[in-house]
C-alpha cells in the first residue's frame, strides 16, 4: 500500500462513461481530486476551485510540486524542489524532451487537462522506473477506456476570466461499443497580457493554444486491447515577460500505439506494451520586443522514439512489476544572430549540436503485503545511456572548450529503493530510503552559450560530467478518523556530484548583456529537504477545513543556499456545500524568502497572502449535467511575486472567472 499511498493521484474526471456507474455521478469535464489509487476514485467536483484551469494551475496545488513561472504559460514543474533535469516527466510513461534550450517548453506544456485522467507523482527513487531521476517522477496519465459502455457521450466547456481576457473553450465527443471506441477532444485557450496586482500590466504575457487529441481502441481478443493515440498541440504567440525572448511557435505531435493484455494467467495480472514517437518544434521570437540588442532566431527540435513494456505479476502476497524501457532522442537547437550592419554575415552556432540520447533500462518493483498492518515495497532499476554528438561541427565547437571531447559517452545508471508502511487504527507510519543516479541533461552536457536570464550568465555544457547520485530518505505519519486527518511527511536528499554552473572568469560571454560564463561542473554534494503538514477537519458532512503547510531547504557543500527552494508557504481552504451549491474560501501565501541564492542571481521575495472565493452550481439529470462555477482570485488585487517567479515577474492580480460545463452521456452498459 505504501508505494501507492505515495502517489498523489489527481484525477481529472473526463471518462464520462465511467461516471455513470460511480456511486455519485458528481463529475465534470475537468474536476480534480486527490485520491488513494487502490480505492475507487471518489468524484468530487466541489474540490475543484476552477474546473477549466490549466494543467499548470492544477499541478501547483499538489504537495511537493512547485512551478517556475516565466510568464503566463508553460510553467516548469519542480518536484521536491528539483526542476526538469532532476525529475522525469512523462505522458503515459512516454518520454518527451522539451525542444527549447531555455526550458520554455516543459513536457507539461504540450498536453491539456482534457487529455488526462490523473497525474501520478512519485517522490525520489520510487518513481525512477522508466527513466533515472533524482527528485522523482511525474506521469501524466491519459484517459483509458474499459469497454463496458456503448453509445455516444461528450461535453462542451467554456471558461472566461477577466484578467488577461482569458478564454478557454473545448469540446469532446466519444463513441464506444463493446469492441471499439474512439474519442476526439479539442481545447482552445487564448489570453492577452495579464495584469498583476495594483492594476499593473505585464507586457508580453499573452498566449494562444490549440490542442487536439484523438484516441481509438479496439478489443482484439478477450482481455486484449489495442489503443492508438495522437495529440497535436500547437501554441503560438506566447509571451515570456521574464525572458528576453518570446515564442512564435511551440508544436508537438505525440503518438503512441499500445497493446494491453489482462488476466493472462492467474499470476500475470496485466501486460502492457507501448511504442511511441513524438516530435516537438519550438521557435523563439524577439521581433516584438523593443530595443533588442541583436535580433536572433533560435529554433529547437526534439524527437523521441520509445518502447515500454510492463508486466504485473502476483505471487502470493507479492505484486511484482517487471518493466523494460527504451528511448532514442534527438535534440537539435541552433541560433542565428543578425548583426545591425547588414553587410556583415549572420552569426550562427549550434546551441544543442544534434545530440542523440539512447537509453535502455530494466526495472522491477515488488509490493509485498506482509499482513494487514505491515507492507514492504522495494524496487531496482538499471539502465544504459549513450550520448552522441552527431554533428561534426558540433563536436568541433565543443573542442574549443574540451579539446579531448569525445563524440560519444556511455553510462550505466542504477537505482534501488525500499519502503515500509505500518498502519493500524487510523494511524499510519511510513519510512523509506533510496539510491539513484542520473545522467546530465543535454544542456548540462552539451549546451553551447545558453543564456540564463535569471543569473545573467551564459552556460556551457560539460561532456565530461559524471553521473549525479542521490541518497534519499523519507518519513511520514498519518492519523485519520471521521472528522480529522493529520498528515506530516518529509524527505531528505543528499546529492553527490551535484551538477551546477560555476563561473569561469576566463571566458567571455556571448550574449550581449550577459555578466559572464558559467560552465557546468559538479559540487561534491548538495542537500535538499522538504517537509509538509496537512490538516483536515470536517465537523459536519458539508463543511470542511483544510490546511497545508510546506517548507523546503537546500544548500550546497559550502552551506550556501541553492536557488529556487520554496520558503515556508501555506494554503488554507474552507468548503461548504448546500443542496446543489458549493462555496469555497481559500487563502494562500508564503513567508519572506530568506534562504535565497545570491550566487545564482536570486534576491529576497517578500511575504504575501492572497484570498480567493468561488461558488459552484450543478444540475444533474439522467443524461445531461450542467456545471457552473464563478469565482474571484486575489480579491485584494495584491501585487506579489514568489520564489519561483523567474526574475520576480509579478503574479496575476484580481481575476474574476466563470466556467460552464455541459456534459451529455447516452451510453448504456454493455452486456
Amino acid at each position, binding site marked *: 500500500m505504501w508505494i501507492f499511498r505515495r502517489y498523489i493521484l489527481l484525477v481529472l474526471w473526463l471518462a464520462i462513461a465511467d461516471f455513470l456507474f460511480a456511486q455519485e455521478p458528481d463529475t465534470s469535464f475537468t474536476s480534480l481530486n486527490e485520491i488513494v489509487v487502490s480505492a475507487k476514485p471518489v468524484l468530487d467536483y466541489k474540490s475543484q476551485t476552477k474546473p477549466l484551469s490549466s494543467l499548470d494551475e492544477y499541478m501547483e496545488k499538489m504537495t511537493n510540486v512547485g512551478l517556475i513561472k516565466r510568464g503566463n504559460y508553460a510553467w516548469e514543474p519542480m518536484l521536491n524542489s528539483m526542476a526538469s533535469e532532476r525529475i522525469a516527466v512523462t505522458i503515459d510513461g512516454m518520454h518527451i524532451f522539451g525542444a527549447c534550450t531555455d526550458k520554455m517548453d516543459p513536457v507539461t506544456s504540450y498536453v491539456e487537462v482534457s487529455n488526462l485522467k490523473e497525474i501520478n507523482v512519485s517522490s525520489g527513487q520510487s518513481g525512477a522506473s522508466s527513466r533515472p531521476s533524482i527528485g522523482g517522477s511525474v506521469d501524466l496519465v491519459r484517459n483509458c477506456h474499459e469497454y463496458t459502455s456503448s453509445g455516444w457521450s461528450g461535453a462542451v466547456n467554456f471558461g472566461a476570466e477577466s484578467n488577461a481576457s482569458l478564454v478557454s473553450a473545448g469540446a469532446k465527443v466519444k463513441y464506444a461499443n463493446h469492441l471499439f471506441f474512439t474519442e476526439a477532444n479539442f481545447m482552445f485557450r487564448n489570453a492577452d497580457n495579464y495584469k498583476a496586482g495594483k492594476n499593473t500590466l505585464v507586457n508580453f504575457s499573452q498566449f494562444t493554444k490549440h490542442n487536439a487529441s484523438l484516441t481509438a481502441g479496439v478489443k482484439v481478443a478477450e482481455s486484449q486491447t489495442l489503443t492508438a493515440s495522437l495529440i497535436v498541440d500547437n501554441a503560438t504567440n506566447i509571451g515570456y515577460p521574464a525572458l528576453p525572448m518570446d515564442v512564435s511557435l511551440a508544436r508537438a505531435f505525440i503518438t503512441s500505439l499500445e497493446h494491453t493484455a489482462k488476466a493472462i494467467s492467474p499470476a500475470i495480472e496485466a501486460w502492457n506494451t507501448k511504442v511511441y514517437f513524438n516530435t516537438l518544434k519550438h521557435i523563439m521570437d524577439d521581433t516584438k520586443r523593443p530595443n533588442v540588442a541583436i535580433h536572433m532566431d533560435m529554433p529547437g527540435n526534439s524527437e523521441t522514439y520509445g518502447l515500454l513494456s510492463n508486466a504485473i505479476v502476483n505471487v502470493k502476497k507479492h505484486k511484482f512489476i517487471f518493466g523494460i524501457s527504451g528511448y532514442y532522442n534527438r535534440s537539435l537547437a541552433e541560433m542565428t544572430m543578425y*548583426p*545591425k550592419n547588414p553587410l556583415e554575415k549572420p*552569426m550562427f552556432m549550434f546551441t544543442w549540436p544534434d545530440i542523440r540520447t539512447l537509453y535502455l533500462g530494466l526495472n522491477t518493483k515488488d509490493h509485498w503485503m506482509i499482513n494487514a498492518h505491515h507492507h514492504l515495497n522495494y524496487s531496482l532499476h538499471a539502465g544504459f545511456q549513450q550520448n552522441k554528438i552527431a554533428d561534426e561541427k558540433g563536436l568541433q565547437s565543443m573542442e574549443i572548450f574540451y579539446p579531448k571531447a569525445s563524440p560519444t559517452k556511455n553510462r550505466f545508471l542504477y537505482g534501488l529503493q525500499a519502503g515500509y508502511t505500518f498502519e493500524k487504527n487510523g494511524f499510519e507510519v511510513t519510512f523509506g530510503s533510496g539510491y539513484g543516479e542520473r545522467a546530465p541533461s543535454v544542456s548540462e552536457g552539451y549546451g553551447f552559450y545558453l543564456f540564463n536570464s535569471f543569473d545573467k550568465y551564459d552556460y556551457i555544457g560539460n561532456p565530461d560530467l559524471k553521473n549525479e547520485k542521490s541518497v534519499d530518505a523519507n518519513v511520514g505519519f498519518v492519523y485519520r478518523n471521521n472528522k480529522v486527518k493529520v498528515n506530516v511527511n518529509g524527505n531528505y536528499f543528499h546529492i553527490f556530484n551535484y551538477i551546477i554552473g560555476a563561473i569561469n572568469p576566463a571566458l567571455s560571454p556571448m550574449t550581449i548583456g550577459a555578466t559572464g560564463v558559467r560552465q557546468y561542473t559538479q559540487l561534491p554534494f548538495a542537500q535538499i529537504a522538504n517537509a509538509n503538514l496537512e490538516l483536515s477537519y470536517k465537523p459536519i458532512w458539508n463543511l470542511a477545513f483544510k490546511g497545508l503547510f510546506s517548507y523546503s531547504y537546500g544548500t550546497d557543500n559550502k552551506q550556501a543556499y541553492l536557488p529556487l527552494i520554496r520558503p515556508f508557504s501555506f494554503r488554507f481552504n474552507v468548503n461548504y456545500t448546500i443542496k446543489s451549491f458549493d462555496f469555497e474560501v481559500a487563502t494562500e501565501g508564503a513567508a519572506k524568502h530568506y534562504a535565497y541564492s545570491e550566487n545564482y542571481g536570486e534576491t529576497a521575495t517578500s511575504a504575501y497572502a492572497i484570498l480567493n472565493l468561488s461558488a459552484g452550481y450543478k444540475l444533474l439529470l439522467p443524461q445531461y449535467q450542467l456545471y457552473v462555477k464563478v469565482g474571484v482570485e486575489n480579491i485584494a488585487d495584491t501585487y506579489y511575486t514568489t520564489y519561483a517567479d523567474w526574475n520576480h515577474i509579478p503574479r496575476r492580480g484580481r481575476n474574476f472567472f466563470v466556467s460552464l460545463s455541459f456534459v451529455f452521456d447516452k451510453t448504456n452498459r454493455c452486456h
Partner: protein
Amino acid sequence: MKRILFMAFAVLLLAVSSCKKENNNKASETEDLTQIQEVSNANFSVEIWGVKSGFETGYNDIYFRVKDKTSGVYLQDASLSWYPEMHMMSMSHSCPNSTIAKMNGKQTLYKAYAIFTMATNATEYWDAKIDITKNGEVSTVIPVLNVVASSTKKVASFTGSDSKKYILAYIEPQKPKAAVNDLVLGLFLKNGMGFDAVQNLNIEVDPRMPSMNNHSSPGNENPVFNPSDNFYHGKLSLTMSGLWKLNLIVKNANNDIIGGKAVTQTEDSNLYLEVEF
C-alpha cells in the same frame, strides 16, 4: 580459377585506366581552381589561376601554367620567376611574395603567393613581370593584375614604434570553421622596394566579435614563427560564424610593443585583421 584470373585482370585494367586518367586528364591539374587571366608573348602563353575568380587585397595563392605556343604543350620543366609591382602616381613598390615553384604532384602547375597591400584603382595598378626560362633563354610577360578590395581586412600595414614599416597578413584559415582553427599569419618588414619575412617578433592575437559586444573565445594560441614557411603559426578558436576581428599586438623580444595595443572596454587595437564566414 578462370574467374579469379578474370577478376584480377579486371582490377588491373581498372587500376591502369584510373592511373591514366590522373596522368592525362588536364582538368585534374587545375581542379578546384579558376582561371583568372591568360597573357602571351611570341613564344609562350601564361595562364594565371586562383582559388577565387580574381585577386583580392591580402594573401593570394596564385597558380601558373605555361604553354609553348609552337608545340601547344604545357611546360613541365620551366623555371619561372616574377616581380609583382604596384604602379602608383609617384612611385612603384612591390609586395610580400614568394618565388614561383613547381607544385608537388602536379605536371604543369606552378605556384606562388602574393600579399597585395592595396587594391587597383583608376590611376594605380598592379602588374607582374614574369620571366620564363627555358633552355637558357629568358622570355617575359607582364600581365596587369586586377586586385579588388577584400570585403574584410586581410592585410595591415603599419609603422612600428621602431619606425620600421611592417606588413601583417592573414593567411589561414582560408575556410574558417566554428572550431579551433589553425591560424597562420605573415609578418614582413619593408626593405627598400621589397619585403623580408620577420622572425624575431612576437604576435599576440585577441579575436573578438564586434557585433557581439566584443565577445571573445577561449583556447587561442598566439602564433609563433615557423622557419619552414616563414609564417607565424598558432590556434584560432571561433565559437560561431560571423565577423571576427583579430586584434593584434606585435612585440619584440624585450616585450616592447612594436604595433597595436590591448583591447579595452572602449577601444580595440589599432592593428587588426578580420575573418568572416
